[in-house]
Structure formats: structure tokens, C-alpha cells
């Protein structure tokens, strides 16, 4: 088919809200944009295992420990589906990991903050996963089929993550005065990073307009941020915890909560590599990957030996 016709057909599919599948023709820019976004999403899941994983060995009850282990395991699973979704676009996981290690692909800046107390685990579930869901639910209708389908399952699990975070934080905020203080401190530290997780303001966002035209994205960052604040502000009341934003209040006329401006300089700093944990998170991933090299080599060597004699390696 003529390239012009291909593009017309592609645009028609997107406008009709049909799904683009791996074997369909797609513009190079669409492919690149998706690889960038899906890889960044996958990396975020994997790097995101670290801040919460930091508390697995210290979880204060067996029930919480089991939940936390399962949750961090889910993040690994999400990373797997997403790397697979990216692979349908013609890249492979090893290449994406290399790009992450080289600093050429990013992950969500929110994971560059430290988890300093147990309450951070609850705050991450409630706020960070809450913001992530706000971002991800519209992605279930993304124009690229494999990404959209991966997001359906991811969202189901993320919704459980958010509820467990809320429930964990509720136990603390309705517990002893020390536990309440721990919960408030965690909300103080995680509130703004969670709002910033939804990306720079629309005026600053470089990818939004093209992504929306391609129906990869459905809402702008600022629309998603409003949605998120509208969801969590009343939940904060139930938790009896106070978000660290003096401007946060219900606006009857708008039918939305008003809220203050994020510290965009801080976001730029953290995205740029100078957050509290950027170096630590990446170094952890690089060292786990390097330390595992001999294991992956052994598996490959075994598979090669045994496939040569007709044995199917797992």
C-alpha cells in the first residue's frame, strides 16, 4: 500500500477508537513514543519495588508482611507485562534495561524519595498508587492494543494496592499517638511527590499534545492531577490526616478541589537526577543486574547444551 494510504488507514483506526496491533503499520514517531512511554512505565514498576521492598524485612505483623511481599511481587509482574508489551514494538528487554542503566530512559521521579518509616508504605499505597491509577485507567483505552490490555490487569492490581495502602494508613492514623504522627509525617512527605507523579504542568509537558492526538493519552497532566486531588482529598478527611497544602479546599462553583502549585523546580531537580535517591535506586538495579549475570549465563549455557541433544530447557 502507498505510505500515504497507510497513514490514512492508521489515522482512521485511531480516530474510530480501534486498536493498533503489533503487525499493523504505524508511524515511526508513534512507535518511538510508545516505546519511550511503555519502557518508562516498566522501569517505574521495577525501580518502584525498591522503596517499598525496603520495609519487607521490618513489616510489623505477618499480615502486613504478606500483603507487602505480594504487592512488591505484583510490581515485578507489572514490569514483566510492560516489557513484553514494549517488545511487541521491536525492542527487547535487555536493550531497555541497558538504556535505563545508561540514563537514556527514565522512570517515575516519585521513586527517588526515601521510605523512612513504616507509614511510608501506607502512604505510597494510598497516594503514589492512587496517582498511578488515575494515570493508568485511561490507558486501558490507549490506541495500542498490547499496552491497553496490559493496563487492564495492572489497574485491577493497582486498585487493590491503593486500598491496602489506605487501610494500612487508617490503622496507623487511628492507632496510638505515635502511629498517628508517623502517618501524618508520611503524608507530609509523599503528598507533593504524588501530585508531581502526574507529570509537569500542561504548559511544560513536551509529549502531551502528540500523545493525545494518537490517543495514547486521553487526558492532560493537569486534568489527571485535578481528578487525583478530587479523589484523595475527601479520603484524607476519613483518615484524619491533613495534606500539607494550605490552599486545599472544596470549590463549590467549580465542583472541584482547589489546590496549591507544585514545586516544579523540585520536580525538575529530581527528574534531572538530583533527587534524594536517584543514584541509590539506579546503583541498586545495576548491581543486582550485574550480580545476576553469571546466573543468566549459566541458564543460557545449559539451554544451549541441552537443546543440542534434543532436551527442552525450561
Amino acid at each position, binding site marked *: 500500500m502507498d505510505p500515504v494510504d497507510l497513514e490514512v488507514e492508521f489515522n482512521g483506526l485511531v480516530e474510530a477508537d480501534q486498536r493498533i496491533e503489533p503487525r499493523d503499520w504505524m508511524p515511526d514517531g508513534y512507535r518511538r513514543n510508545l516505546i519511550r512511554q511503555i519502557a518508562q512505565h516498566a522501569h517505574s514498576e521495577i525501580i518502584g*519495588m525498591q522503596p517499598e521492598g525496603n520495609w519487607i524485612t521490618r513489616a510489623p505483623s*505477618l499480615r502486613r508482611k504478606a500483603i507487602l511481599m505480594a504487592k512488591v511481587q505484583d510490581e515485578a509482574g507489572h514490569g514483566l507485562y510492560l516489557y513484553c508489551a514494549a517488545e511487541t514494538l521491536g525492542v527487547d528487554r535487555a536493550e531497555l534495561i541497558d538504556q535505563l542503566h545508561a540514563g537514556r530512559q527514565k522512570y517515575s521521579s516519585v521513586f527517588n524519595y526515601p521510605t523512612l518509616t513504616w507509614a511510608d508504605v501506607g502512604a505510597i499505597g494510598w497516594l503514589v498508587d492512587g496517582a498511578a491509577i488515575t494515570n493508568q485507567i485511561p490507558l486501558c483505552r490507549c490506541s495500542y492494543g498490547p499496552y491497553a490490555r496490559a493496563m487492564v490487569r495492572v489497574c485491577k492490581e493497582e486498585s487493590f494496592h491503593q486500598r491496602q495502602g489506605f487501610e494500612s494508613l487508617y490503622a496507623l492514623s487511628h492507632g496510638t499517638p505515635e502511629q498517628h504522627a508517623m502517618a501524618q509525617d508520611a503524608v507530609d512527605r509523599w503528598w507533593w511527590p504524588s501530585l508531581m507523579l502526574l507529570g509537569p504542568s500542561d504548559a511544560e509537558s513536551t509529549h502531551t499534545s502528540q500523545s493525545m492526538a494518537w490517543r495514547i493519552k486521553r487526558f492532560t497532566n493537569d486534568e489527571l492531577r485535578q481528578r487525583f486531588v478530587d479523589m484523595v482529598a475527601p479520603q484524607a478527611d476519613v483518615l484524619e490526616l491533613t495534606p500539607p497544602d494550605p490552599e486545599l479546599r472544596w470549590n463549590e462553583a467549580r465542583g472541584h478541589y482547589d489546590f496549591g502549585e507544585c514545586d516544579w523546580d523540585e520536580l525538575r531537580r529530581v527528574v534531572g537526577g538530583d533527587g534524594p535517591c536517584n543514584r541509590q535506586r539506579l546503583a541498586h538495579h545495576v548491581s543486582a543486574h550485574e550480580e545476576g549475570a553469571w546466573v543468566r549465563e549459566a541458564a543460557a549455557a545449559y539451554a544451549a547444551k541441552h537443546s543440542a541433544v534434543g532436551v527442552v530447557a525450561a
Partner: protein
Amino acid sequence: MTAVAVDPAAVYTLRHADDCLVLSHRLAQWSSRAPSLEEDVALTNIALDLLGQARALYTRTSELDRTGRSEDDHVFQRDERDFVNCLLVEQENGDFAVTVARQLLFSTYQLETWRALGGSTDRQVAAIAAKAVKEVTYHLDHATQWTLRLGDGTAESHERMRAALERLWPYTAELFETDAVTDDVVARGVAGDPQRLRAAWDSSVDQVLREATLERPSTSWTPTGGRRGLHTECFGYMLAEMQHLHRAHPGARW
């Protein structure tokens, strides 16, 4: 706490609960550090299965010893000398080969133990065992597959796996020890005789090692004491980390 005169069956279930808890904790330490993403998922799966087994066994222990202790009391409020897990499970993760070797040696033992407990006269223990057998069958398969790959993979992986077996082998003798507690539960049909598991364990492990081109280590050193609360030094650090938050907030609910 083990000094309290209790039903030996409660001591027996506590030993296995502690085995499961401690190994689960060690495996959970791999989270975000495994050689591949698939392996991260798999190790956490095994850790979660073991944690589930531990919780069921702690609950049964408290019914048998009539102390009314919760699972969290068992885990977070006992001191090092009160834990009665075997020494093998508390050994540090080391490299991936040490973790695989530990899992192979322990899961083989655990599978035989659970199979025997499937016929326990304690119906609750039998029910816990019936579920656990399915889980541990998978754990053993996973450990076996990795033993084959590391043993018969590269020269480096073979050497690491050999060294790992050498390091952990001494701790396997303790698994088959008998004492007044095991004598009692065996006599009452609650559990199988640990010594009678030995032959099946030997033949199963030997077969895997042979196929993995590894040799069975020989050792004259057979450390013991875990079942009496005499642990290796690394264990105290594990407990300190595991218990500190819970203990820092007496009476708090989480």
C-alpha cells in the same frame, strides 16, 4: 517459652512454623535483587507460600499449647533462644547458588516431612500438610531446575554451586535428628520419624546432584542446636531487623 511444659506436638508444630517463617524471610530478602525479573517473582512466590504455611502452623501451635498466643506474638515477641528452627534455613542468602542449594536441601526435606504429615492423627496438621505438599512440590522443582542449570551451566556456575553445597551440607544432618519431642509425636502418630525420611532425602538429592554433574560433599562437621534454640550468629541480626518495629510500639495494632 519453650521451657513451659506443653504438648510436644505444639513444640513440633512450632519447629516447622519457625522453619517456614525464617526461610520465607531469607527469600524475601531477595526482593528487587534477583538475577532476573522472573526469578524475583518466583522467589517471592516461594517466600509467600512458606509464610502462609508458617501462619497456619503458628495458629495450630497456639491451639495445642493453649497459650492463646497470636501468630505475631510468636514471631515478634520471642527472643532468639526461643526460636526452634533448624540452622539450615537461617543461613544467609549468599550468592544465588547458596540460595538455590539451601532451597534444594530444605525443600527435599520439607516435601518428605509434609508427605508424612499428610497422614497425621492431628487432622488440622494433616490438612495443612495436604495443601503444603502441593506448594513444596513446586519449590523443589524450582530448586532442582536451578541446580541443574548452575551445576551443568558454565564453569563459574558449577564452581559456585559446588561451593554452596559444601558450605550448607553440614547443616543437613540436624534435619533428621530425633529427641523426646519427635519420639512423642511419632509414637502418637502425629508425625513421621525424621530418621525414616533420610533414605528418601538421600536418594532424591543424590539424583539431582548426579544429573547436575555435582558431587555430594562429604563432611565430618554436623552442627546442631536449632531445635533447642541454639542458633548461628547471623540469626540474631535477622531477628533484630524483623522485630524492632513491632517491639518499639508495645501493644500497637498494625
